[in-house]
């Protein structure tokens, strides 16, 4: 799960790095294939190509070591789950590592029958579990029946074959991630494995078989418990469920435990059929490869992946918040706070003012939070911020995270944070501060170019979520357009009391000593 993209992954042009566009000969070949080569020197020479089924490829040839990074991003995240099925996008992501009709299977036609028996047994068990008062003996019997059906199906599973293939290929960083907005699959390989990747992954997204579903569901429940044991995750979850009343950003990406208990393989199959379509995906391929070869192989292996109509995705819009929300979470950890103010999303140019504001507040030791909260008043251990969390597809939150330094309290830190924002409302930032932010942004764009996998992630997610792989480069222009007064204006517009949700983490002991309403002394021992 991705929580804080304090600055999204950023890139900047530097021509000598890319062998990309190559010779005139290469250019001609690419054109003939129908690919578009970026020629504007402001951007790297990414080769874009859209297949007939809608799968979009973004390819950049980059040399040093003979490796290549693949990033496949689907525009489907937790927001796209149906009511009562939170966590399905993430659970499906886990299931995408369980093989296909030919991978992980010792014979799918027979296995299929056994998998249906597992599903029937599981549904019976879930039905009993979901009753107001399940009958213990019956439940035990149904659990045993499920375990028996799973054991029978095991006989036709080639265990973990998908992983084993990649281990042998020499994978690096094979992983996947689900956010509110998207699901991504990443792996890096030695570059002479290009065709192997095409074969395996085209099979994976065309023919995924969701075997061992109920065991993996238990794994995800453990993942949830791990998060429940971590005060940071707990605070984020609490912030989002309170700040969003109507929009699905309300729901935790990992899912509610109660929903997880009722998710079935049938749900996941349906989800797969609905959203895992080529016209809902972008593939970035970055590394020591030839773009025309990537295109040819993609056509060879992915062309038979059928385009499908995607559902309308007009979710309940979050209504303007009309009240300040203050929440206390009790957990055995030292106090800290998370704050969220609703923004109006990346479709509104105000977001760039908020991005600038965030950087002025919290980027580095010369930032206002550090200078005044950490250093000047010495109230905080840290104070940080970001313009758009938990997502970018819909209006989201400007978030602030901070922790007091004993003996100071979360209330003191909150006051000091608001004081810094108030100063900016009244007096615009200095030109030096704004120039610093832009310089840092540009330097971080250069640094992003160093990593194949980081660059691939940026290209694919910007294309798929924000509609343009060049997005990060264009942000620089937007930042340059801002005037100091714009920053004050957005501070005034968004940082209002009734647009604010604040979550305090408090130690249980402290809450008993002082009721939540009263200013607590905040965890001093």
């Amino acid at each position, binding site marked *: 799960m991705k929580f804080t993209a304090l600055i999204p992954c950023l890139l900047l042009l530097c021509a000598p790095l890319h062998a990309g566009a190559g010779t005139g000969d290469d250019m001609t070949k690419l054109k003939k294939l129908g690919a578009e080569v970026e020629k504007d020197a402001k951007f790297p020479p990414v080769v874009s190509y859209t297949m007939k089924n809608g799968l979009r490829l973004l390819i950049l040839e980059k040399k040093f070591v003979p490796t290549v990074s693949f990033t496949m991003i689907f525009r489907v995240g937790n927001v796209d789950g149906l009511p009562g099925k939170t966590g399905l996008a993430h659970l499906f992501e886990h299931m995408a590592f369980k093989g296909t009709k030919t991978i992980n299977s010792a014979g799918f036609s027979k296995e299929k029958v056994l998998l249906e028996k597992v599903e029937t047994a599981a549904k019976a068990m879930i039905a009993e579990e979901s009753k107001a008062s399940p009958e213990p003996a019956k439940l035990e019997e149904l659990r045993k029946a499920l375990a028996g059906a799973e054991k029978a199906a095991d006989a036709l599973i080639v265990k973990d074959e998908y992983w084993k293939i990649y281990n042998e290929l020499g994978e690096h960083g094979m992983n996947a991630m689900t956010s509110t907005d998207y699901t991504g699959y990443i792996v890096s390989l030695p570059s002479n494995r290009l065709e192997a990747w095409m074969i395996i992954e085209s099979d994976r997204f065309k023919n995924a078989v969701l075997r061992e579903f109920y065991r993996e569901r238990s794994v995800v429940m453990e993942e949830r*418990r791990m998060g429940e044991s971590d005060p940071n995750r707990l605070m984020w979850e609490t912030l989002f469920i309170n700040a969003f009343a109507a929009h699905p950003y309300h729901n935790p990406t990992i899912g509610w435990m109660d929903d997880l208990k009722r998710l079935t393989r049938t749900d996941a199959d349906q989800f797969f059929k609905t959203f895992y379509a080529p016209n809902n995906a972008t593939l970035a391929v970055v590394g020591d490869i030839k773009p025309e070869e990537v295109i040819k192989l993609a056509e060879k292996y992915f062309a038979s992946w059928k385009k499908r109509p995607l559902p309308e995705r007009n979710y309940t819009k979050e209504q303007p918040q009309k009240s300040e929300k203050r929440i206390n979470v009790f957990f055995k950890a030292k106090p800290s706070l998370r704050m969220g103010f609703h923004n109006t999303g990346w479709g509104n140019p105000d977001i760039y003012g908020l991005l600038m504001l965030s950087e002025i507040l919290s980027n580095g030791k010369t930032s206002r939070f550090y200078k005044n909260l950490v250093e000047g008043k010495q109230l905080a251990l840290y104070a940080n911020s970001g313009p758009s969390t938990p997502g970018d597809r819909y209006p989201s939150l400007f978030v602030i995270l901070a922790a007091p330094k004993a003996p100071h309290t979360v209330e003191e830190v909150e006051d000091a944070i608001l004081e810094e924002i108030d100063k900016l409302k009244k007096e615009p930032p200095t030109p030096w501060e704004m120039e*610093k932010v832009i310089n840092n942004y540009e330097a971080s764009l250069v640094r992003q170019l160093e990593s194949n996998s980081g660059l691939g992630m940026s290209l694919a997610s910007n294309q798929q979520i924000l509609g343009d792989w060049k997005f990060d480069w264009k942000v620089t222009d937007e930042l340059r357009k801002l005037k100091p007064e714009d920053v004050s204006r957005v501070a005034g517009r968004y940082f209002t009391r009734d647009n604010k949700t604040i979550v305090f983490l408090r130690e249980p002991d402290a809450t008993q000593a002082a009721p939540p309403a009263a200013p607590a002394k905040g965890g001093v021992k």
Partner: protein
Amino acid sequence: MKNIILKTAVLGAIMTLSISSSWAVPPSLPKIGGIDFKPPKGSRYTLENGMVVYLLKDNTLPVTHMTAIIKTGKIYDPKEKIGLGELTAGLLKDGGTLKYKSDEIDKTLEFLGASVESSIANEEARVDMFALKKDLDKVLDIYASVLMEPAFEDDKTALKKAEALEIIRRRNDNPNREAQREALRYFYGADHPYGWRPEISTVEPLTKKDLKAYHGNYYRPNNIIIAAAGDFGSESAFLAKLKEKFGGWTGGEVRFPEIPPVKINETRRVYFIEKDISQTFIVMLQKGVKRHDPVEFPLYVTNEMLGGGLSSRLAAEIRSRKGLAYSVYSYFAKRPDYGFINASCGTKPETYSQALSELLRQFELIKTETAPDAEVKRAKDSIINSFVFRFPTPFDLISERALYEHYAYPADYLDTYVDNMARVDPKAVLETSQKLFKPESSFVFVIGNTKKFDKPLSEFGPVTEVKED
């Protein structure tokens, strides 16, 4: 799916990879060739004052990266001043220098989008630099001053110390991290440098005098290796710049304290911390290996099979087949004296005994039954074929070279690495497991809500409750 933690504390190495890999499953995949990569050598120089410099020119981007590896580390702190090395490292830049005030450094670097950052680990301290080409001279001058002549300004020192104390107060906020740290602490003994942690009582008394003395002892040119890669102009011109910056810095003898020998009580002990949390964190520790012991090669392969990834035995059984954990893994860490072998997992309290029993069983199994050829081969392929990812950029490559020298590996270590891995066979895996794994006498550390445990901890051995502090 978040990455499971894969730590192998084995240092990177560089060599030509040309091991061929025959293809097993599935047959529809094309034949996979070997990986032929001859990484650039880079250059190694020694300045007159003993400072070693590795350089690799790389003008693909208009940037320069540099790192200095200083031979010191948290294990060398004086016992009554644990945290001294960390506080010193943290203040090299943040406390200003004789030439530059701290605020001036921050303003200059942050305006340029450059960085100079320092850190310390168990056996190394680092000072890293990043600069755009146009700013290299300016940033390099700050960098050199930070490394050679930190001022430890009073107000910044007080601030950093207060921060260190607050971090100590918050050290148990995350029970997973707490479990890992405390397990090692009780395994080696709280007084041993391999296990200790800074305390309020060891950080509070630290003074500027301590920091200066620490810096004076360890931060000397003959105790430092520098590695740089990037678009820094010609190599000779950049070397001349480094000589100009560091040449006047005089070397001298570095005094290292004697580290007491590691003594591990190899009988089963179960330690636990009572905590009402959703998940129970289990850490199992066994005596590991000393750095440079050639057993690391079969151990590396063995660990890959046992707990190195999602198809490893631990993940397959505890995670994928039984659904008991999200995070389950094993790794080993080398030390000058005995390192450790760690196997960890997180599971709900109601299934902790199942998960722990399976952890123990898998260590037992691998030392009693010879592993199938195919499994050993796959683990080797995984290590050998992904080797190239240890140096994805020129800077990664050259700093790996420097690190390799820092940890005093034999000169041919790199050239023989792949061959050494390739030589590991099922017999070596079995012998290594039999030699090193003693699950029956392993140390077990648990944090969780014992009231919900499915079995009493005493079923796993003599139990000691420790209080969180």
